[in-house]
């Protein structure tokens, strides 16, 4: 994946705390595991029935029956545990997962996300996206600020179907970090190599500035 996605993953990882049980979505969010700050021990939950998923094994050590929810081979971290699908999702909906990091197609002005279906195409996959959104204690969106075609992903209203009514708590892109309160998005930080003006013109919904934000 590109340098930008690694950069986003690094920025997301700063928000993880010691002992957190984390569920990382497919794609960009998976990279977050590589950037967990030193000295911070987190436990990776994967919804197909495991907590304590470890790093990708060497090719000769791959166990075809040990995979994550992206169907990629993983390993057992210290203290790993296996459980059934119903228990895995009881953990998720029951608020036992500290942080879910999700990729998105779009985020709206209230921080609600669309990440499971594209209009006009048959809807044939939802997986655990809706459960993670409603259940995780904290939902962090990890996304590029723009689509590959250069269109803003943070918009007033999602044109893609919403994944749920619950807003995300934090939205992290390569340019900015937004928190979400009941009135909508609050710009918390502009990335060091970006500018406030860039963020303002490439975010297609109104947002407020955090009191802590220094606008240069």
């Amino acid at each position, binding site marked *: 994946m590109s340098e930008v996605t690694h950069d986003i993953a690094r920025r997301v990882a700063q928000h993880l705390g010691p002992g957190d049980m984390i569920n990382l979505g497919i794609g960009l969010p998976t990279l977050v595991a590589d950037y967990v700050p030193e000295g911070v021990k987190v436990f990776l939950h994967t919804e197909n029935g495991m907590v304590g998923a470890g790093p990708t094994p060497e090719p000769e050590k791959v166990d*075809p029956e040990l995979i994550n929810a992206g169907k990629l081979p993983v390993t057992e971290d210290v203290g790993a545990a296996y459980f059934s699908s119903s228990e895995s999702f009881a953990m998720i909906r029951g608020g036992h997962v500290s942080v879910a990091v999700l990729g998105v197609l779009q985020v709206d002005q209230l921080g609600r996300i669309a990440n499971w279906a594209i209009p006009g195409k048959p809807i044939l996959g939802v997986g655990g996206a809706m459960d993670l959104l409603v259940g995780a204690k904290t939902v962090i969106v990890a996304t590029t600020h723009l689509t590959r075609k250069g269109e803003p992903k943070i918009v007033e209203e999602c044109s893609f179907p919403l994944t749920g009514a619950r807003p995300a708590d934090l939205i992290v892109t390569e340019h900015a970090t937004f928190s979400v309160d009941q009135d909508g998005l609050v710009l918390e930080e502009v990335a060091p190599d970006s500018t406030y003006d860039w963020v303002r013109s490439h975010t297609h919904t109104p947002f407020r500035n955090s009191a802590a934000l220094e606008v240069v």
Partner: protein
Amino acid sequence: MVEVPRMDGLSSGRIRSKVISVEEAVALVEPGSTVMVGGFGLVGSPLTILDALLTSENATDLTTISNNVGEPGKGLGRLLLGGRIRRAIGSYFTSNPDVMERHRSGELVTSLVPQGTLAEAIRAGGAGLGGFYTKTGVGTDLAEGREVREIDGESYLFEKPLRADIALIRARKADTLGNLTYYKTARNFNPDMATAADIVVAEVDEIVEAGALDPEHVVTPHPYVDYVVQAEIRLGKGDEPLLDRAGGG
């Protein structure tokens, strides 16, 4: 047509083995059966029985309850290509393009359920519950036409339980009574499905005598399991599931 002996559990004080052949297992599936199939992709899927179902004239017009429809041309995906599946209930079909194609042509009816709701509906079906309320899916396209209830100020969606005529599951070890242990992430939906079908058949890598499994290690207790089949197909290194770019399970 293979005759399957019905199990009477205890006969003349002796414990009868639940072990049957693959052919006998396949004969339990009837035209129009609703079949639960364990697995996340191919991992934890009863691949031996699924392949054998293709040889059965009776395994037609099936409704499957399974997270995916296997992988393209593998597991349940083979039965799909064989025209045996009429309806598929699951959470993630996108990883199998054959499902897309048959959905488009109208040969296959699909019902999409969030993965946690699928698992819990199966659990509820096996636990004698009439359904449950979940926050998952509220306010989405999947909630259309469904009952929403306010509980303590929050909105929940009503979900009905799921049951099947037969569950085909996969486990690591069985004893001859039907106690089951599992292997790593091949566990997934299998323990849930073991509770929620009229007939439960477990395909296993290894069969041991009753008493050989540590009772502390048993995940699915034997009363849930009707039959045990020795697996002949196990996921090898060549069958590693590949990254699904569109998203996971």
